[in-house]
């Protein structure tokens, strides 16, 4: 950028005027502090005070951290209040299930978030996976019925044929173990579910040291206390694993369930395939 001579004079004059203000302010601020004002060489009227350099910041901020998109990211949300899920995004659609804010275990009930839609009236609806029978039911609930979103990048796959559970993180297998599954009379349900709580320090060796609650429900034991939900848990009979040994729950050796507990966050999607 080039300035004309006249413009340069104007700029110099303005800076000189500003310099007067700075010098006066600086000298005043140094009074009583032992500060020394220095006149600039060649300046007879305007003192230019030599100011200290800025201090080195106590810390520096790193480069902006771009969000790393992941195809393996799944969102879940707690249920804030009991709500009726519907077949479409609006109150006019038929009810497909009703979910409360608490699980039978006393923990916060939650749902997996599958999609969202804003209605013409401006209200926001969210499509969710539901912990209801029939298994694999999805439905729409108002956004206002849900709490804050949380994200996981894990996925648990239980292969009933192989009697094996595999945990994936960002698509890579990070854990695998043999499992016990339901008998022919009480089969482990197949489909898409999710892990919704973790129980520990209970006094029942039958379930081992850790038990995960899931959204899967036995289609046979519908009158089971608390609704017949399927759990993932340890065992006091490790010799039965792998095998068809349970009432639908997925049993792991205690060492394996402890390792899984350290790797698998709540909200992890669960796929059970035949």
């Amino acid at each position: 950028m080039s300035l004309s001579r006249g413009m340069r004079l104007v700029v110099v004059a303005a800076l000189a005027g500003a310099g007067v203000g700075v010098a006066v302010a600086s000298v005043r601020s140094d009074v009583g502090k032992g500060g020394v004002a220095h006149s600039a060489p060649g300046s007879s009227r305007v003192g230019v005070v030599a100011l200290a350099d800025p201090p080195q910041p106590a810390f520096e901020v790193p480069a902006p951290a771009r969000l790393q998109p992941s195809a393996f990211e799944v969102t879940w949300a707690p249920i804030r209040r009991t709500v009726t899920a519907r077949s479409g995004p609006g109150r006019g659609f038929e009810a497909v299930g009703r979910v409360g804010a608490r699980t039978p275990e006393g923990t916060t009930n939650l749902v997996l978030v599958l999609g969202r839609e804003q209605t013409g009236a401006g209200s926001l609806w969210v499509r969710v996976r539901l912990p209801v029978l029939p298994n694999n039911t999805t439905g729409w609930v108002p956004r206002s019925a849900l709490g804050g979103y949380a994200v996981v990048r894990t996925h648990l796959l239980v292969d009933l044929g192989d009697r094996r559970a595999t945990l994936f993180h960002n698509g890579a297998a990070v854990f695998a173990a043999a499992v016990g599954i339901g008998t022919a009379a009480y089969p482990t349900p197949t489909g898409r579910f999710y892990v919704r709580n973790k129980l520990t320090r209970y006094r029942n060796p039958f379930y081992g040291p850790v038990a995960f609650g899931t959204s899967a429900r036995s289609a046979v034991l519908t009158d089971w206390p608390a609704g017949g939900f399927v759990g993932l848990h340890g065992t006091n009979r490790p010799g039965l694993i792998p095998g068809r040994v349970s009432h639908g729950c997925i049993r792991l050796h205690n060492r394996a369930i402890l390792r899984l507990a350290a790797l698998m966050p709540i909200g992890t999607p669960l796929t059970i395939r035949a």
Partner: protein
Amino acid sequence: MTFRDIPDLALDELDKDGAIREALDRLPRSSRSGFLKAVGGGLATAIALGRPPAAAAALSRGDIAILNYALTLEYLQDAFYTEAERKKALSGPAAQMARVVGAVERAHVKALRDVLGRRAVARPFFDFRGVTEKAPSFIRTAVAFEDLGTAAYKGQAHKIESPQVLAAAIGIHSVEARHAAWIRYIAGSRPAADPFDQGLSQAATLRLVRNTGFVGRRPRTRAKRKKPPFTG
């Protein structure tokens, strides 16, 4: 809408899992309107683990507390923009703003957490109640957050004891002010609302933050001593 337009709510409604209160509890009395305690030291040790020499100098408990206060506000902004970007409900300038500013707020969080080390307060659980999923509500909230963040940093500047911490805080403060100008422009408002910006006290800042209702109770997903009711 600015942060001054947010209606009033109770602290308990804001701070459902105690993270904000934890941050407050670490502030010295001189910095938090009389209802907060001073905290112990420890920053020097944390800083020594890889921080520049200037930062490793002994810093006051008050400065640690102010950094934690700043971290709490940065958590709020980080979570807000991150959720907006993840939900992909925005488009155009608002989406760009969420993406760019979110990356910066995440960097602010990282910087503060690194310098605080084990002294860093926990991240609260946020519930933005859908405002990240609609452009008008996102823009209104972003204006409020950025104005608030700018005023909050300014409100603590005179209490920062270390010139090095002050230099770092001012470095963040001016960035927050630029964010505020950007989102105000997107919202159709004047980039600078007034010719002179007032700082905001901590008490006023936290009252305004809790008024949003965006700090929710962390879901209780674990239970102890509860017999599993599963089919077995």
